[in-house]
């Protein structure tokens, strides 16, 4: 996983609330037993003119040339609700998104973001609306900065918005760490706990 420290990038607004993982990547786009090759299917239902097609829908914001190369997504509340498919995070990451700013996230989706190097930034709705409106004047030059080390977003007008993120997620993102490696450092502790549990709750072990 690529470590994330600070990112300054084009931010694309998709501010409607309750964008679910079916919308982020429709089932029909999840055609391989792999975490790769999903970027084309990102927001497919909105992004293309026809189901299963690849003709860009000119009305969808991601297809607007001014947002080419956007790495920050500005979203509405409850982003990533619905199915727990991690494909949503894989597709967003492969498309190039490294940070998502939303008033709230679905918890499973949020965890999937962290495990795939995307920073989930929770900010109040008015802060996000403000960032979106100041960026919209000239998206290619009015960039947004996400500084994970200082837990701070800088809007194009220079205004700063601090955000909180749990230390564990922050560490993993900052260092690009794999959670399994981290956990296996505690192998002895885990085994001791299992052993004691096996004696207390033998019926659990098949």
């Amino acid at each position: 996983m690529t470590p994330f420290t600070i990112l300054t990038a084009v931010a694309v607004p998709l501010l409607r609330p309750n964008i679910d993982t079916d919308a982020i990547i429709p089932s029909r786009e999840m055609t391989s037993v792999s975490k790769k090759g999903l970027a084309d299917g990102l927001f497919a239902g909105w992004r293309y003119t026809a189901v299963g097609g690849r003709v860009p829908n000119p009305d969808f914001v991601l297809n607007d040339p001014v947002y080419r190369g956007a790495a920050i997504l500005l979203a509405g509340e409850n982003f990533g609700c619905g199915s727990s498919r991690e494909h949503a995070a894989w597709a967003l990451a492969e498309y190039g998104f490294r940070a998502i700013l939303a008033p709230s996230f679905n918890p499973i989706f949020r965890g999937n973001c962290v495990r795939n190097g995307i920073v989930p930034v929770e900010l109040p709705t008015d802060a996000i609306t403000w960032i979106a409106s100041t960026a919209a004047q000239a998206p290619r030059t009015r960039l947004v900065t996400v500084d994970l080390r200082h837990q701070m977003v800088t809007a194009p007008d220079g205004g700063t918005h601090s955000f909180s993120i749990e230390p564990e997620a922050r560490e993993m993102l900052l260092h690009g760490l794999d959670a399994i490696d981290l956990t296996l450092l505690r192998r002895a502790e885990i085994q001791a706990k299992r052993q004691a549990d096996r004696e207390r709750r033998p019926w659990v072990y098949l």
Partner: protein
Amino acid sequence: MRTIFEKIWAEHQVADLGGGTELLLVDRVLLHERTGGVALESLAAAGRKVMAPGQVFATMDHVVDTLPGRGDRTIMPTGTAFITATRAAARAAGITLFDLGDPRQGIVHVISPEQGIVLPGLTLVCPDSHTCSQGALGALAWGIGSTEAEHALATGTLRVRRPRTMRVTVNGRLAQGVTSKDLALHILARHGAGGARGHVVEYAGEAVRALSVEGRLTLCNLATEFAAFTAIIAPDDVVFDYLQGRPYAPKGARWDQAVAAWRQMYSDDGAVFDRTITLDAGAVAPMITWGNSPQHAVPLDQPVPAFQDVADHNTREAYDRALSYMAVTPGAPLVGLPIDAAFIGSCTNSRLEDLRRAAALLRGRKVAAGVRAICVPGSSRVKAEAEAEGLDRVFLDAGFEWREAGCSMCFFAGGESFGHRQRVVTSTNRNFESRQGPETRSHLASPETVAASAVAGRLADPRLLEV
């Protein structure tokens, strides 16, 4: 004084990782071919092993189709690759697989209780958001992503942020003809689809205790639609009776030992919850959804609500969008809207009790002309039991399709869907845009309401049909 959640959590705690995150023992991992195959393959590719293969189970439900005579070939494009990859990875990892043709195969959340895989007091995870269903048995069961599943498989643990606690107490009794599906939709309509965010919800109270295990599974199933971390119900004799003798449930002296421990699994009097909600079961009516979020639900005999009546949990934009997507009008009744299709199935409502209740309404009746009606049992075992009682004949005689077990058209599973903009009344859990087909208009309801509507050819109130 502790809540049931706190008791289970403490029992599984390995280490405090700081910042509210803890390392927890995971007792069971369930997988299905759509997200589980990826986890197994990716784990193997990283050179890692499944730590306790005996505690890991996989099934085929999402990609396989549900047509009679099905096999590895499925309508879903590239679906066969998911099926064969999952089978190969499951074999290589030495885990138990309920493959196609196995009488134990079925939707993961239906077969886990059925086989006694989920037990009270366990921690159980599955890369699927409706894993919360299994809290109905008194387990701490929650949905995770595929990468987290790899973590659980490789280490037998998960790094979990501790959720807050919330108790929803339902006093009194549900009226005749009101189901736990209606109760779940009622709660969603009242408290919003984000109402339980960050919380583990304990369902309690007389109305909840009066539910069968199947009814409890339906109630807990919709906890993910409530944005909950998961749901749980304190296990009682209803649960113990249900589990006794199930294939993976403990036997003999182990059983007695287990039940003694399970009897301690309840929230102590005076245990403190971060939030509590109390509601009156008598106020719950049969429900139907009118929009594209499960919170867009109203009593069946009510019209599509005006914006001011739902403004609590909706923005004007989302409300307007839902109206136009669903082609419904504020103030106009829902009952009477002509439907194209009716679907009974999914991990929400496809167990034997659900099928029996729908069949009771369908016996001696016919599905209206022009309506496509489909019944998909939740598991091969449910299907066999239903057939042993002749329920398949009731569905078939009424004009329903009778399918093999799986997720089916809950979401395009098996590559099938309903047609463009078709109006579908469905016993499933998600009425999202295009969930069941291109721009399909899904109305969530109980199996009874689906059956009554199939017969009427329009959204209909099952209480007006005589059994």
